[in-house]
């Protein structure tokens, strides 16, 4: 009965705007409960700790994957590009050696070998008989990092090779460039990036394909940089140069670059022409009416034109029949006492 009375009092009081009501307690109780509810929601400990925990875990996870993305971009692609470039160039030299002919298009051959390990659709290793590109193409290395990253960080990596090419800007180096798009997706974030990577390898120690093709593999010459300064040449240094089969770079010369020696495009290289002497003891017949400067010898620039050639008699005790044109005699500082006109 008392409860009914209170309810009636409450509604009566409500109608009269509580002002005249003596029992304000229930009103204050509602306010107090509301304030308590707000406090409880705000300060519930479990939600606070869980949020903090999650944010720390997310931070760590994102940091780990971000580190992987940075490594991929700044280090992995560059390391892989350098290694694969070296192997691809080596494979192409063996390919030229095996086929005995020049490449028709260096750029496309290089790109195909780098990405797939094939040349004209055939595995290059099966043609050269050397296992150089096996498990070592860009695609292979990309698959390896994708698999290891999945295992280590549980991320899905997608790598798309846009373009790969090689060129020379310095006589003794090959620069390769890789354009790549990659995506790294984890359960917390996704990274989408494009990257242009460059790598440089030295050519010293590699076989000169120009010699291999022109002598049908009978005469091989490895690239070795001459240590003689341009103004320090003498007959004895030329002898040493010829003995070592070393190469010389002259500014603004007519010599082809190393990469040009893969194709039958023997023309002056603007930046990177290198030249070596053909050793008469290593060719048959040894006596030819040619300048024994490699790119002039096999392009037959002075063939039969003995009036423009000189027998370098100062070296004939060791290199009989060695001849040069007047321009190269001057460059290598071979004076008239060591040379006589061929005819």
């Amino acid at each position, binding site marked *: 009965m008392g409860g009914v009375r209170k309810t009636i009092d409450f509604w009566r009081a409500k109608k009269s705007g509580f002002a005249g009501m*003596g*029992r*304000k*307690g*229930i*009103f*204050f*109780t509602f306010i*107090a*409960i509301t*304030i*308590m509810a707000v*406090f*409880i929601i705000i*300060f*519930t*400990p*479990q939600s*606070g*700790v869980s949020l*903090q925990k999650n944010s720390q875990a997310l931070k*760590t996870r994102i940091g*780990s994957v971000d*580190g*992987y993305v940075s*490594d991929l971009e700044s*280090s*992995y692609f560059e*390391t*892989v590009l*350098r*290694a694969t*470039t*070296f*192997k691809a160039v080596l494979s192409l030299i063996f390919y030229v050696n095996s086929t005995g002919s020049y490449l028709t298009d260096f750029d496309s051959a290089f790109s195909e070998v780098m990405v797939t390990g094939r040349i004209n659709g055939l595995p290059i290793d099966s043609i050269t008989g050397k296992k150089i590109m096996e498990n070592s193409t860009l695609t292979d*290395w990309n698959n*390896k*990092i994708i698999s*290891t*990253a999945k*295992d*280590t*960080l549980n991320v899905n990596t997608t790598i798309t090779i846009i373009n790969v090419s090689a060129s020379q800007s310095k006589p003794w180096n090959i620069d390769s460039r890789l354009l790549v798009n990659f995506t790294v997706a984890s359960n917390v974030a996704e990274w989408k990036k494009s990257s242009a990577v460059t790598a440089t*390898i030295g050519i010293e*120690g590699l076989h000169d394909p120009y010699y291999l093709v022109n002598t049908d593999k009978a005469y091989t010459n490895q690239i070795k940089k001459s240590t003689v300064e341009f103004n320090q040449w003498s007959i004895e240094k030329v002898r040493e140069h010829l003995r070592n089969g070393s190469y010389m770079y002259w500014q603004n010369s007519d010599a082809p670059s190393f990469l040009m020696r893969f194709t039958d495009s023997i023309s002056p290289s603007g930046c990177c022409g290198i030249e070596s002497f053909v050793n008469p003891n290593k060719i048959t017949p040894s006596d030819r009416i040619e300048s024994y400067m490699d790119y002039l010898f096999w392009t037959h620039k002075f063939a039969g034109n003995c009036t423009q050639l000189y027998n370098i008699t100062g070296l004939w005790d060791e290199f009989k029949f060695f001849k040069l044109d007047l321009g190269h005699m001057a460059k290598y500082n071979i004076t008239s006492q060591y040379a006589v006109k061929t005819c």
Partner: protein
Amino acid sequence: MPSKKRGYFFVLDAVLGLFVIAMGIFIISTSYVNVPQLTQVSLLADDLLVFLSNTKIKDLNNPYAGIGGQLWKDGVITDADNSLLQQVGEFYATNKLDTAEKFVANVSKDIVPEQFRYEVWIDGNLIYPRNPAAEHISSKNNTALLLTSKKLTFGIMSRTTSSIWGPYKAEVFTWEG
């Protein structure tokens, strides 16, 4: 009790209740946040891996593993630009597992506090310690909190031929025990 004063009684009651609840919340939340062991072990695992992957041989002052040290003089370490983790990976790739174990023991000697134990794994193989003692195994099996930090590692075997090793999964496990 006069009806005018009942409201104050209710408010006082509610405020008292609120105080009790607030105290309860404070005590519970304090006990939730203070879990120092988790943070410490977790940071230790990350720190050890970061130390191994960010420190280069050339930056290391260590008579065994640094430049001019025993391994350098013996020609076992040849690339000063390798990180410590890369050097461990290279030892693993070239099957110098004993050297790898000794190398890790040397470079991490003063890094990890004595009350903690740790393991270094490369490519799913235990590198340090290679032959853990029974006490070590038991401690690992019984620990309440075993934390790991992982990273990928790779490197160059020969600068001349640019041959590569890896990429491998490098893992560090740490626990208190």
